[in-house]
């Protein structure tokens, strides 16, 4: 196993290096094009930029190679290109904010490295199930706390500590995925037991459906208290997907859809801001909404339509007519200036990232790793789908960011931590399972029967 790992590692190492260098080149290229378009000259800080980007990503590359040998070589470079393109576009839209974004990018990469350093085997996280879970929920609901909670753009999603304002939902997303991976992996047989049948669907005992209902309740709570559709939808979606992945029971999917529908209905009936989102989705281009609440969505549609197939060219369009275009709507800016070609390239990058993420989940043998990989990937995939869908008016708009590309420190940093964990999952774990944190045998150990993983005690499965 070791020899194979080494050979494999060298090949993947080479690929990752090549791809990372390519990613840096593309990012620098995009930045130069943007500055050229704006000022007609090459950026004055080009050397510093190249140095910083190369250093940051190459360090990240080496850390992956050293600390996570055999990891998937595509994950880091893809995220690098996405964040590089995002930076270039943000610079085009608002150079002041680009400075912030660059800082956060460096911070994100720092935390990326730190995560890989601190967590040598992701399975150690399996031992802190409930701690992590509680932390996740706490972070999710933190903005509700009086005093530090902030409402920005109608959503109480933010927490301000002194000058620092961040979005704890982004962190809680990662924590909750870890929690769910651990919890669902432990309980999966229980949850998968079918005692009732309704048509082709098997349902477990009502009490075992508790977790689904709790998750549903929490997402509704997020909707209620924080007035945010996006996080609520994302969380519930991730949970349902992971529950289904763990148990294989289609009934959970169906139940999830039903609960979602009920939740959506409740949300629509009870909340003006949900109704508003739906109205805007349906009627953004109607005269009475076009210049009022539907303005942002309408402008995004115009922007993309004006871009057409090849786009207006970087710096030639008018994405600035879209309010807050650097965050949620940055996709529309790409649509306008880089056209369908540019937007397809972005989508393909995400597809690559997501594909490799699922591949990593498949490559691992133990349930926790699989669920963790699948869950983290689902988080990125679903978030991307929700925001791109909202921006293109496929579905109602919700306020979440485009991973790696949108302006926003919390999102960027959290996504790089997520990436680190995903890379960790994609790398073949060390031969020995990590020591347990508690006395009780962990469910993962019980469930596993892999020859490569040595259980400390010969417990029956």
């Amino acid at each position, binding site marked *: 196993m070791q020899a194979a790992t080494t050979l494999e590692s060298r090949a993947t190492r080479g690929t990752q290096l090549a791809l990372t260098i390519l990613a840096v080149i593309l990012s620098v290229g995009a930045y130069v094009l943007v500055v050229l378009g704006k000022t007609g000259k090459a950026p004055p800080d080009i050397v510093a930029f190249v140095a910083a980007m190369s250093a940051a990503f190459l360090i990240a590359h080496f850390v992956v190679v050293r600390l996570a040998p055999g990891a998937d070589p595509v994950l880091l470079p893809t995220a690098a290109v996405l964040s590089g393109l995002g930076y270039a576009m943000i610079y085009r839209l608002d150079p002041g904010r680009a400075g912030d974004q660059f800082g956060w990018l460096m911070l994100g990469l720092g935390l990326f490295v730190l995560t890989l350093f601190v967590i040598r085997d992701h399975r150690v996280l399996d031992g802190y199930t409930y701690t992590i879970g509680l932390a996740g929920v706490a972070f999710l609901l933190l903005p509700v706390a009086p005093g530090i909670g902030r409402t920005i753009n109608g959503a109480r999603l933010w927490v301000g500590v002194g000058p620092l304002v961040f979005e704890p939902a982004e962190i809680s997303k990662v924590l909750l995925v870890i929690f769910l991976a651990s919890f669902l992996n432990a309980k999966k047989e229980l949850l998968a037991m079918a005692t009732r049948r309704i048509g082709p669907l098997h349902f477990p005992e009502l009490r075992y459906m508790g977790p689904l209902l709790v998750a549903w309740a929490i997402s509704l709570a997020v909707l209620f208290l924080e007035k945010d559709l996006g996080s609520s939808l994302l969380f519930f979606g991730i949970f349902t997907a992971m529950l*289904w992945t763990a148990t294989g029971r289609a009934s959970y999917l169906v139940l999830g859809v039903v609960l979602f529908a009920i939740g959506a209905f409740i949300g629509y009936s009870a909340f003006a801001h949900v109704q508003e989102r739906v109205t805007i989705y349906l009627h953004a281009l109607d005269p009475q909404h076009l210049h009022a609440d539907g303005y942002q969505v309408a402008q995004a549609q115009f922007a993309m*339509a004006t871009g057409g197939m090849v786009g207006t060219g970087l710096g030639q369009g008018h994405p600035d007519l879209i309010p807050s275009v650097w965050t949620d709507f940055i996709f529309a800016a790409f649509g306008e200036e880089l056209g369908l070609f540019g937007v397809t390239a972005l*989508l393909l990058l995400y597809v690559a990232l997501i594909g490799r993420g699922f591949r990593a989940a498949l490559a691992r043998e133990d349930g926790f790793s699989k669920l963790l990989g699948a869950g983290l990937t689902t988080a990125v995939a679903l978030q991307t789908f929700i925001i791109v869908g909202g921006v293109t008016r496929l579905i109602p708009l919700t306020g979440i960011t485009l991973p790696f590309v949108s302006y926003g420190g919390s999102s960027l940093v959290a996504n790089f931590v997520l990436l680190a964990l995903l890379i960790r999952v994609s790398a073949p774990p060390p031969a020995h399972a990590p020591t347990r944190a508690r006395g009780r045998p962990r469910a993962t150990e019980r469930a596993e029967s892999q020859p490569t993983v040595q259980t400390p005690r010969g417990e029956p499965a």
Partner: protein
Amino acid sequence: MMDRQIRRLALAFLALFAVLFAQANYLQVFASSRYANNPANQRLLLQEYAVDRGDILARDGQTVLARSRPTKGKFEYLRVYPNGPLYADVTGYYSIVFGRYGAEASENDYLAGRAPELLPQNLVDEILGRPKRGATVVTTINAGLQQVARRALGSLPGGVVALDPRTGEVLAMVANPSYDPNPLASHDPAVVRQARRALLRAPGKPLLSRASQELFPPGSTFKLVTASAALENGMRPSTTFPNPPALQLPNSTAMLHNFGGEHCLGGAAQLTLAQALTVSCNVVFGEIGLRLGAAKLVEQAQKFGFDKAIPFELPFEEGSIPPVGEFAGALSFVATSAIGQQDVQANPMQMALVGAAIANGGVEMEPHVVKEIRDADGRVVKEIKPSVFGQPISARTSAELTAMMVSVVNAGTGTAAQIPGVQVAGKTGTAETPSGKPHAWFVSFAPARNPRIVVAVVVLNGGDLGSDATGGAVAAPIAKAVIQAALRG
């Protein structure tokens, strides 16, 4: 094993992303035009205003009718009309809120630098990083003549059109009231809206050109059409007609009278066609109309372009005459139509074309106001060549009519148009209106032998002379001033 679920999850997301891709395709390819051209989408407008829009010049290539000036602000260029109201009928306007009109509209592809002929220049500009520059439109308008026409018309309501019968080039086009396109081109939508509101409320509809868009009864100038029909259908200038003091209209108790109730030519028993035109005898022409019949009259009018689509770059309402069917139950209308009353309508542009056909050996050229297009560096990229609209009358008819029109000026109702040393041909018109103040018309060309210019004038409701007005008294002097200036210069 979870693998099955994971694979399906991956496929599900692939499908979801395929849907996203489809949506992007919808927005950016299939429905792209529809969304991009939504009036609320400023982008195309902003893109358009980022172009250094081409100038519109008079035929001398120097006098500027419209140009673009760079400005600060989101709309990068401002459209300026240095002689605003003077050329408004020709230039039209270029407005953020109300779009384009007139030459600004018809030549937009060139002015905006979008026409295919401008591709090479656009490419060079792109490479050199210069802003896109539109092409220059050189009009056929003679700046000096336009000013003469404007001064001659003065503040009288009506319109003047001068064109070259050999080519169809419009040399001058003036209407009263007109408007100043400058406020309409403002970058401030409030200013634009206010200006337009004022124009829409102003009396006389300044935005509709009386020279080419509004329609009025042509009165006796239409006798040129009736006479054409007569000559084309077997009658001769020497054909005689009875000359009663008034004409008994068929199927009616009404009588057709001459101007002022007079008896043509002092009461002569018979008049020739030529004499009748010279003194503009309603009674005889009514008779001619009845003899011709509706079909031939309508047909001849249509040959001149009435009720047809005459190609012209600017908004143009062709003359109109009721269709043959309408005369079926109303024979008397044929008589009244023959003298340019009843439901016959025309404007100076239409009547100028009638005159032009007569002046040009019977060949009516298509009117055009654009002479050539030059790219931003001055190279001619398109030349508009004269084009024939049709041949409403034979060369012989045109010669005969010319002779008659010469006698109108020399000895008939148009003596006010006489110019020493130049033989002017013309026809007056004094169209009755419900208000009692007639429209004064004059259609003319000169020199009669080899005409170089056709001028058609209408002054509404008699101008200064009110109900005492006649075509000869009010309109002919204006035409004379224009012809003199044209032949001099």
